[in-house]
């Protein structure tokens, strides 16, 4: 009965019937109280977004998986100290961090949230070593600014290591599916040591696929926590790509499982416990692994199913071929393709099995998808590319008998595996390099790297958002607008980069488009901080700073670990001249992310206004150190230096700014100002003349020229310049100054 219950719980979870799962699991724990069952119950609670229940249930448990689940619940409830204590107990420094790479990742995130950057970096590096395909860990390292070169992280040696991990597990029959699964297995992480040799390759690959999904799920789950999108959505939207891949696999697999579970009851539970897996998904597959292990006779049982399988294969192979190729080209569309393939399979059991597999496969990918935009769709597409390559081999494998071609297939699989691993690592290398460079604000290089991606990868929400961000940092708002718009159109539900997009529209003064974007985002997800940031930017553009502030504060409330929301609040307070509060918010932003140069800049501006020039210079310099390419920052640093009367350095900084970005008129203007201060009137005038060619319609420029002429007592020219300045309609304050 216990196995039956466990199975039902898993299938409920798989099909998102959380309350059903919880109910069953509670009965299970009441009847068979064991730590594994309690872990399962905790998992159910976590899926149902009740971390406090999981916390309560798991308190005090000592098994590594329990500790990991407990730490996750603590993290979700914001009890960082307890989470850390569980993962890394102070009294027992030698206790291993549970669940390998993901445990290290979670610990790293906790360290980052509590401000211990170097410890966090260490943990992330550790996680990445344990599982080179744990993108989230690499991403965190990039954000901390200390990621190493992707060529080292995702290098040839890593590829070899991954390959070894797969080939160490022996092959079994059923290599029909094994081909794709080989490819799928290329995503594996190292934590599969406990799979026994006797497993079917396919099953093994299943496991691996799921396991690989798992580390991505957990950290992305946490990452979601960090990046503030709503929790529930993590587990939605299975990707159709997954459907494609899984469609070919497994009806027989599941059938075997069911058969097995009917025949054997005693073994499985113990094996399950031995596994100690956290995710029910992974667990289920591990269970099957165990089941398969004990059942060499499965194949004998299943001889009747083989012809059906091959028949089905023929059916689905053609379908999936077309589907996958279609999918490969589709970019990020979340179509409901999965059910399409379903309909082709004859037996009801198989179709439900397929659906369940799809869903199961879909789940980890879905979490990844949702969390990191189409980053994983990127990887999914990679899968489909690989699979469309191998599905043809699958269909050809139909006619042959298994035993004969086993050896051949193993060799084929090995090479496919190697190829798959290298391709995936290659993709990671490109994406990782691009991301790392854009985090270091080396935007031109980042753009070049991103352009190396194949078109299918490039036209995905995540990549396009990253490209947009790179242009944004380069102050090329028109290009940024173009890319963000494309990203939003291609994947309207990616909210991650949309706060930057709203800022781009703010800079471009596009009131209508900004309000449209804001309304769209709110309608997509009312609980996402990016949407509220967009709304706030809308009001800020209209100079309604108080409403903007309210919206930004909502955004902060929704996710206090979203640094940009704090910075925007700071900007609004600064505009309202409430400098104390603005300093407070900028500091909050810096607490969340020390490399958020906008907050450093904001602080610099506040101090500049308060005439605390030393402080201003210090803060601008910090911002400049983080982002050494921004001409605007250089300009401001120069302004601060000018206020400090360090005019030589100021001029130098202005020169640098002018060189950094030819299109930026401001450094030239500031340079003219400084020269005016130094009483080098003629040079200032020259500078302004040069500037006139670029920016013809700037009233302040003519006003400044007028002022200089007045100083030089060339009154007629002064009048002339002031006249032009007035024509260009400056605001009232200037009018007063100009009309003498």
């Amino acid at each position, binding site marked *: 009965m216990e196995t039956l219950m466990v199975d039902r719980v898993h299938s409920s979870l798989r099909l998102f019937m959380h309350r059903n799962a919880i109910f069953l699991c509670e009965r299970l724990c009441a009847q068979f109280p064991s730590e594994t069952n309690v872990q399962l119950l905790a998992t159910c609670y976590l899926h149902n977004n009740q971390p406090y229940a999981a916390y309560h249930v798991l308190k005090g448990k000592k098994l590594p998986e329990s500790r990991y689940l407990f730490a996750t619940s603590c993290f979700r409830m914001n009890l960082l100290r307890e989470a850390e204590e569980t993962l890394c107990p102070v009294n027992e420094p030698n206790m291993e961090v549970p669940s390998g790479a993901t445990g290290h990742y979670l610990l790293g995130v906790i360290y980052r949230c509590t401000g211990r950057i170097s410890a966090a970096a260490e943990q992330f590096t550790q996680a990445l070593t344990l599982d080179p395909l744990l993108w989230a860990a690499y991403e965190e390292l990039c954000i901390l600014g200390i990621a190493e070169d992707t060529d080292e992280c995702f290098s040839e040696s890593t590829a070899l290591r991954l390959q070894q991990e797969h080939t160490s597990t022996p092959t079994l029959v059923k290599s029909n599916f094994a081909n794709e699964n080989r490819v799928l297995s290329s995503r594996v992480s190292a934590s599969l040591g406990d799979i026994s040799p006797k497993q079917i390759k396919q099953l093994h690959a299943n496991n691996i696929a799921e396991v690989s999904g798992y580390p991505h799920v957990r950290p992305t789950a946490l990452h979601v926590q960090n990046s503030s999108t709503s929790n529930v959505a993590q587990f939605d939207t299975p990707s159709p790509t997954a459907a494609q891949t899984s469609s070919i696999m497994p009806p027989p697999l599941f059938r075997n499982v069911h058969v097995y579970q009917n025949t054997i009851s005693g073994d499985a539970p113990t094996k399950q416990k031995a596994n100690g897996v956290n995710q029910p998904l992974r667990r289920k597959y591990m269970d099957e692994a165990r089941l398969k292990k004990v059942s060499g006779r499965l194949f004998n049982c299943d001889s009747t199913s083989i012809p059906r399988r091959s028949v089905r294969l023929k059916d689905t192979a053609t379908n999936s071929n077309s589907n996958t190729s279609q999918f490969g080209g589709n970019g990020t569309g979340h179509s409901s393709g999965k059910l399409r393939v379903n309909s082709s399979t004859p037996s009801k059991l198989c179709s439900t099995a397929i659906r369940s597999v799809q869903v199961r496969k879909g789940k980890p990918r879905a979490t990844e998808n949702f969390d990191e935009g189409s980053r994983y769709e990127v990887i999914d597409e990679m899968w489909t590319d690989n699979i469309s390559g191998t599905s043809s081999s699958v269909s050809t494998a139909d006619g042959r008998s298994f035993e004969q071609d086993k050896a051949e297939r193993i060799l084929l699989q090995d090479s496919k595996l190697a190829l798959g691993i290298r391709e995936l690592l290659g993709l990671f290398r490109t994406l990782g390099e691009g991301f790392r460079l854009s985090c270091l604000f080396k935007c031109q290089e980042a753009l070049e790297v991103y352009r190396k991606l194949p078109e299918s990868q490039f036209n995905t929400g995540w990549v396009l958002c990253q490209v947009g961000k790179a242009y944004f940092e380069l102050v090329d708002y028109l290009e940024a607008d173009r890319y963000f718009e494309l990203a939003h159109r291609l994947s309207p539900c990616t909210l991650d980069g949309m706060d930057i997009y709203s800022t781009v529209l703010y800079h471009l003064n596009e009131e209508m488009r900004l309000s449209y974007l804001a309304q769209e985002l709110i309608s997509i997800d009312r609980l996402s901080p990016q949407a509220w940031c967009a709304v706030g930017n809308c009001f800020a553009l209209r100079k309604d700073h108080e409403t903007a502030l309210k919206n930004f504060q909502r955004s902060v409330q929704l996710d206090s670990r979203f640094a940009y929301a704090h910075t925007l609040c700071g900007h609004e307070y600064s505009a309202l*001249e409430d400098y104390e509060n603005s300093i407070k918010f900028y500091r909050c932003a810096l607490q969340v992310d020390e490399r958020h140069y906008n907050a450093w800049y904001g602080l610099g501006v506040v101090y500049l206004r308060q005439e605390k020039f030393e402080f201003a210079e210090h803060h601008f310099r910090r911002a400049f150190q983080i982002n050494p390419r*921004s001409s605007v920052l250089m300009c401001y640093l120069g302004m601060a230096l000018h206020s400090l009367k360090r005019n030589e350095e100021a001029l130098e900084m202005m020169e640098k700014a002018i060189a950094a970005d030819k299109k930026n008129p401001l450094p030239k203007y500031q340079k003219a100002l400084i020269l005016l201060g130094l009483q080098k009137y003629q040079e200032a005038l020259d500078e302004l003349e040069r500037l006139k060619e670029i920016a013809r319609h*700037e*009233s*302040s420029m003519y006003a400044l020229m007028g002022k200089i002429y007045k100083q030089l007592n060339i009154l007629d020219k002064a009048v002339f310049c002031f006249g032009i300045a007035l024509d260009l309609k400056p*605001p*009232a304050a*200037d009018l*007063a100054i100009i009309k003498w």
Partner: protein
Amino acid sequence: MESDAEEAAAAGAPGAGRLKGSPELTVDADMREMAKTAAWSVSSCKAGNGVAALRDDNLDTYWQSDGAQPHLVSIQFQKKVQLQLVVLYVDFKLDESYTPSKISIRAGDGFHNLKEIKTVELAKPVGWVHISLSGADPLETFIHTFMLQIAILSNHLNGRDTHIRQIKIYGPRPNPVPAQPFHFTSREFMTYSTIR
């Protein structure tokens, strides 16, 4: 009827005429409300209709004075500010004899050295009455002051006490880019002028 026509004619004449009030509050975009952090005080008030009613953005609540004329509303700022416009909301139809008719605006450093800068007369106003503080000279677009005092010298129909429903004070916006002598107007300059 004739008196209405007279008033209409009188209101029509600019400058020397009497202000009528408009239903909308129209303020230039380059001005902003300045008195949020100022200290407001009144010479007298009836219980329940105190000074807070002047700043609550609610046109149904009003301040009612309760003493001898002139009734005074004093606004003290934390530092010297540039002011450009004073806007009052009054309603003759609702308040009749409580509606102010002659208003004097004074400015200075404190209660001891206030000097009158403007006097206006109102003619049965309904709505927002805009009182500009600028002089004729462009150099006098703004007044720089620590304190502003609005004195109600007389009411319509010789009423003793007065009702005012809302008061707003406007001045120029500060330059979004710090430490600049002039504002930026063109898009190119503004795009590069700040980091957000």
